[in-house]
């Protein structure tokens, strides 16, 4: 775990929070972008066919393990997720102060079992994309079918957005579609610049905090 005072978002040098607009400053903007840095992220590996493993995760995190490909689960607060990354691999995401809790609750639950939990909180940052034109914006650089019938709320895919590798997660939001883009830190500036440029025609609202 990195000491809190040393943590720096890969987009820190862009001073997004200082450039952010206040709410309702740009009511016509078709795209709303926000960086959400410092999330707790863990890669979990284990055997999905093992009942003790899946039940143990559910008990430890109060979240079911998504077994079907390209799905996710979310807790009641809406802040913690488990994303399906592969048939035996998941990404656990939680608020920034959740690292110790996630680590200890899983490690305690599976003391004598075969599993792997790796803290990857520093590897990616999160860009949250919403607005009426969010889907159109993504379709400029992503080959996934994003129509709600194919990419419903809760869906998650690993794919490319304008050649950069991203994990794309559609949130369970009742209002307009909201997408979470997890991007590796060395690609974060490139992707943010690409998003800013691609969103120009729709009007861009930056709500980074």
């Amino acid at each position, binding site marked *: 775990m990195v000491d809190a005072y040393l943590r720096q978002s890969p987009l820190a040098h862009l001073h997004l929070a200082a450039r952010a607009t206040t709410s309702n400053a740009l009511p016509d903007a078709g795209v709303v972008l926000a960086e959400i840095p410092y999330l707790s992220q863990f890669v979990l590996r284990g055997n999905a066919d093992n009942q003790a493993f899946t039940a143990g995760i559910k008990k430890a995190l109060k979240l079911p393990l998504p077994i079907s490909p390209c799905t996710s689960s979310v807790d009641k607060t809406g802040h913690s997720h488990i994303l399906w990354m592969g048939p035996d691999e998941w990404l656990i995401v939680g608020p920034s102060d959740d690292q110790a809790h996630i680590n200890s609750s899983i490690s305690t639950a599976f003391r004598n079992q075969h599993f792997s939990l790796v803290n990857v909180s520093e590897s990616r940052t999160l860009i949250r994309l919403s607005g009426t034109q969010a889907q159109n914006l993504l379709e400029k650089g992503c080959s996934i079918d994003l129509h709600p019938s194919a990419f419903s709320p809760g869906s998650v895919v*690993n794919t490319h957005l304008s*050649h950069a590798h991203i994990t794309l997660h559609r949130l369970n939001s009742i209002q307009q579609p909201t997408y979470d883009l997890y991007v590796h830190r060395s690609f974060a500036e490139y992707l943010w610049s690409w998003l800013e440029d691609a969103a120009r025609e729709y009007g861009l609202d930056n709500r980074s905090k």
Partner: protein
Amino acid sequence: MLLIPCPWCGERDEPEFHHGGEAHIKRPLEPDQSTDEEWAEYIFMRTNPKGVFLERWVHQSGCRRWFNLARNTATNEIIGAYKMGEKPPISTIANKQKTATVSNKKPKGVK
């Protein structure tokens, strides 16, 4: 561009994948006893058919899993994907080859 059916993620664009060469290459069971010829056969020699080819792919930018694919190297037609350790879809391949031979026949009257 190929549209490749990943056994887990479904159909995705080719740039998400990497090609891993011919599938079902068996490593010599007793490496200590193998001759240079047998090693060379294992390491270097590959079939290069015009037609159905069984090959390995990895879904590098997706679920990062290796799988096998049956693809026609002449037409790029993808016959099917199957997971590592599974048997190739031989009956489907045989059917495809049959139809391919029929369609290759010259129409009547053509010399």
